[in-house]
């Protein structure tokens, strides 16, 4: 196993990671234990709900609710700093004006060409 090479698109499994065995302190083991305890508690809650024969509704996931809520309620935590204002201006305000000018000048130029008769309109059916 010493010459194990992981598959090209996979990460190395935790049990074969040398750092797991050679440089682990007691605090790291303790924090891993507390993480595992949290995870086990969540697993237990889920399994209790999943295998409850009297349950008729969907199992609601509070983490999902929090995620959706956080993504939609960003305005209360918004502050107009230089960076956020710059981003807002760059993506929200500038495209309006830039695109207006680009389209307007292009269309005016085309209209001038048509009036002067210089452009060949292959698919025009109105004239």
């Amino acid at each position, binding site marked *: 196993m010493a010459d194990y090479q992981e598959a090209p698109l996979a990460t190395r499994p935790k049990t074969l990671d040398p750092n797991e065995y050679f440089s682990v302190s007691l605090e790291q083991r303790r924090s891993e234990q507390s993480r595992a305890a949290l995870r086990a508690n*969540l697993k237990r809650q889920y399994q209790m709900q999943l295998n409850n024969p009297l349950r008729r509704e969907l199992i609601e996931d509070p983490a999902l609710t929090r995620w959706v809520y956080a993504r939609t309620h960003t305005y209360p*935590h918004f502050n107009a700093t230089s960076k956020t204002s710059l981003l807002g201006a760059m993506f929200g305000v500038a495209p309006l004006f830039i695109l207006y000018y680009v389209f307007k000048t292009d269309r005016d130029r085309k209209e001038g060409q048509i009036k002067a008769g210089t452009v060949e309109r292959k698919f025009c059916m109105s004239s």
Partner: protein
Amino acid sequence: MRTSHSVRQRPSVNMAGVGFRRWAQALCRGNGSGISALVSGCRAASGVSKGSLPGPYPTTPEEKAAAAKKYNMTVEDYEPYPNKGEGYGDYPNLPERSQHERDPWYQWDHPDLRRNWGEPIHWDFDMYIRNRVDTSPSPVSWSSMCKQLFGFIGFMLFMFYLGEKFPSYQPVAAKQYPYNDLYLEKGGDPEKEPEEVKHYEI
């Protein structure tokens, strides 16, 4: 979380529960008349409570501990996004790893998402699902990939450019017809002798 409304979901009717439900409804309807009776101060206790939803950026260590508990994380793992007014609040800043990188053989609660129930969701989770962005290690290094791709594209572009500059075709000549260039077929006089047309050289 059980409230009086849980009566609806059980097949057998709990008489005490029905009675309590009717009493609660009567209480809500009791004060005022018309619209004010419907807009009552009575709120169902089911669903998420306000304390379990994301809140503002935590400043004190107690707030940080409470937020870590809320998101089911350990206190040293929990790290909120920096408070730059970008709208994150106290949502945890999880490592930017795609779901592709998670163990495919572990028994996840949701196997297609490779996620367990109740696990804190990354802010960009919908980007990191297995149909989309993949952060797992690539087979060769980035520089090698860039060199191969742009080298190939550059070489092909250069060769096509040379082909445009120096075209080379099969040699062609005008078509040669027999019978003195089809003298009679082209409406020549049958009495007259046509001039000899020779298409070869010996």
